[in-house]
């Protein structure tokens, strides 16, 4: 079964050649490729073999897995998901305990140098015991599994940038995947969670071309993160004319004016939400009346209040240099020291925030 091409597998499920071409058309749209690429995609997918995927979940909330597996009956996402051999995913797999860990070791052995490693969640460096799987610390499991991977896909803002676990005061010393693994190609697919089709789009790209998509300076695939939300926002004409909603229920809000003053982070955020949208293309936050939170950008959690305009100064809430250094060193007392110092600073800062401040949206 593993040796069958995608088209052969679809045919086994009673899907006609026409159905396959429809699948290719939707895949082109999914990968944000020009429709002119459809014949090439068809040719590549005809022969695509099933790559082995090992999925590791570290400090995360399972939201990314929820996002990608949300649909229950066959959809484009699930067909692409079917087209890979998901050999280890401890939330989804039936096996548990020793059998589960053996499945990972076996998949690594059988596909050494060729498997794709998908990771969601950040890695705690503060204390190895903060997060373990089968008694193995997250950092050890990552290093071990990354060794035989062809490439690593860091799914979600936690794996890509540290995400919520890394937010001030970062009690576990959480870091992103690329702070630890330096010798493998890494693709960041941030978002909290990422749009499901963006995750499957990256897998589809690998499946189709056997290569990694083109990446931006934050290692994000340009096809999905090359566009600025603000540039593609349908409320943009209001921004240009200076027509802003001042509260969530004023006249401007009702007329669909720009949400900049209500804290929209669209101007500094790169993601596909404004065009790909959510829930099968139904809507996206701005269309539903709420500003963009900027969840696909590094340190979005610490970038000031979600409800303060971008022009508001945010103070020193996100000092990450300490962790960048600590992650490079990866071990030893220095990390513990950095942690303590950082958390005591954070506690001091934290005590300055009152409930009133939170309501007003000022976290300076």
């Amino acid at each position, binding site marked *: 079964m593993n040796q069958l091409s995608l088209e052969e597998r679809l045919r086994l499920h009673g899907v006609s050649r*026409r159905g396959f071409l429809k699948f290719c*058309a939707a895949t082109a749209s999914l990968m944000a490729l020009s*429709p002119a690429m459809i014949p090439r995609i068809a040719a590549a997918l005809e022969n695509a073999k099933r790559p082995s995927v090992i999925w590791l979940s570290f400090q995360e909330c399972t939201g990314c897995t929820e996002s990608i597996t949300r649909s229950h009956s066959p959809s484009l996402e699930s067909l692409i998901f079917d087209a890979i051999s998901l050999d280890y995913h401890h939330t989804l797999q039936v096996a548990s305990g020793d059998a589960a860990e053996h499945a990972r070791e076996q998949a690594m052995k059988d596909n050494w140098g060729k498997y794709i490693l998908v990771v969601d969640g950040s890695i705690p460096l503060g204390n190895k015991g903060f997060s373990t799987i089968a008694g193995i610390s997250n950092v050890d499991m990552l290093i071990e599994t990354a060794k035989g991977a062809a490439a690593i896909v860091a799914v979600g803002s936690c794996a890509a940038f540290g995400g919520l676990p890394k937010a001030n005061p970062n009690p576990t010393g959480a870091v992103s995947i690329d702070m630890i693994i330096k010798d493998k190609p890494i693709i960041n697919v941030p978002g909290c969670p990422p749009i499901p089709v963006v995750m499957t789009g990256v897998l589809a790209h690998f499946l189709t071309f056997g290569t990694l998509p083109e990446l931006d300076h934050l290692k994000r695939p340009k096809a999905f993160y090359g566009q600025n939300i603000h540039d593609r926002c*349908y*409320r943009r004409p209001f921004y240009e004319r200076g027509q802003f909603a001042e509260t969530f229920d004023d006249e401007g809000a009702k007329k669909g004016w720009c949400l900049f003053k209500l804290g929209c982070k669209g101007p500094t955020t790169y993601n596909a939400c404004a065009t790909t949208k959510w829930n099968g293309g139904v809507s996206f936050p701005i269309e539903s009346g709420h500003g963009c939170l900027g969840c696909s950008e590094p340190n979005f959690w610490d970038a000031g209040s979600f409800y303060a305009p971008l022009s508001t100064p945010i103070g020193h809430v996100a000092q990450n240099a300490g962790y960048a250094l600590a992650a490079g060193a990866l071990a030893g007392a220095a990390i513990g020291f950095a942690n303590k110092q950082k958390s005591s600073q954070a506690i001091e800062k934290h005590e300055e925030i009152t409930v009133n401040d939170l309501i007003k949206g000022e976290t300076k």
Partner: protein
Amino acid sequence: MQPLEKTGNILPLLHEIRHALEDLLATGQTMVIDLQAMPFAPSELVELKEILGVGEVSAELHALGKSTIQETAFSGAWWIVHFNIDEKMISQTIEICHIPAILMAQHADIQMGLQQLSSTLGGVSL
């Protein structure tokens, strides 16, 4: 919520279709416009559909969910929507061509149908 203002993307898109139809006539060059790659205000796609109107041909495809293939009032410009089995839209395009490729019978399907017909005939005595 009804935004009063639009993205203004409809007019350039209509010009793009006009250019593509000219190319189709002059050189036979076909073209696909991916509507999901462009920002539209919630009402704009409805408006675009109204402007393009309904032409002479409409077809429905049932493969991995439904697809609708509708010629617009401007012959040679087709509005094509693919849905998955959940009836969720997975792609929406405008194709400029004589006939959308997805409507053509495919070799592999013809071959399989032929085999089935032959085996049916094998068991039939009239």
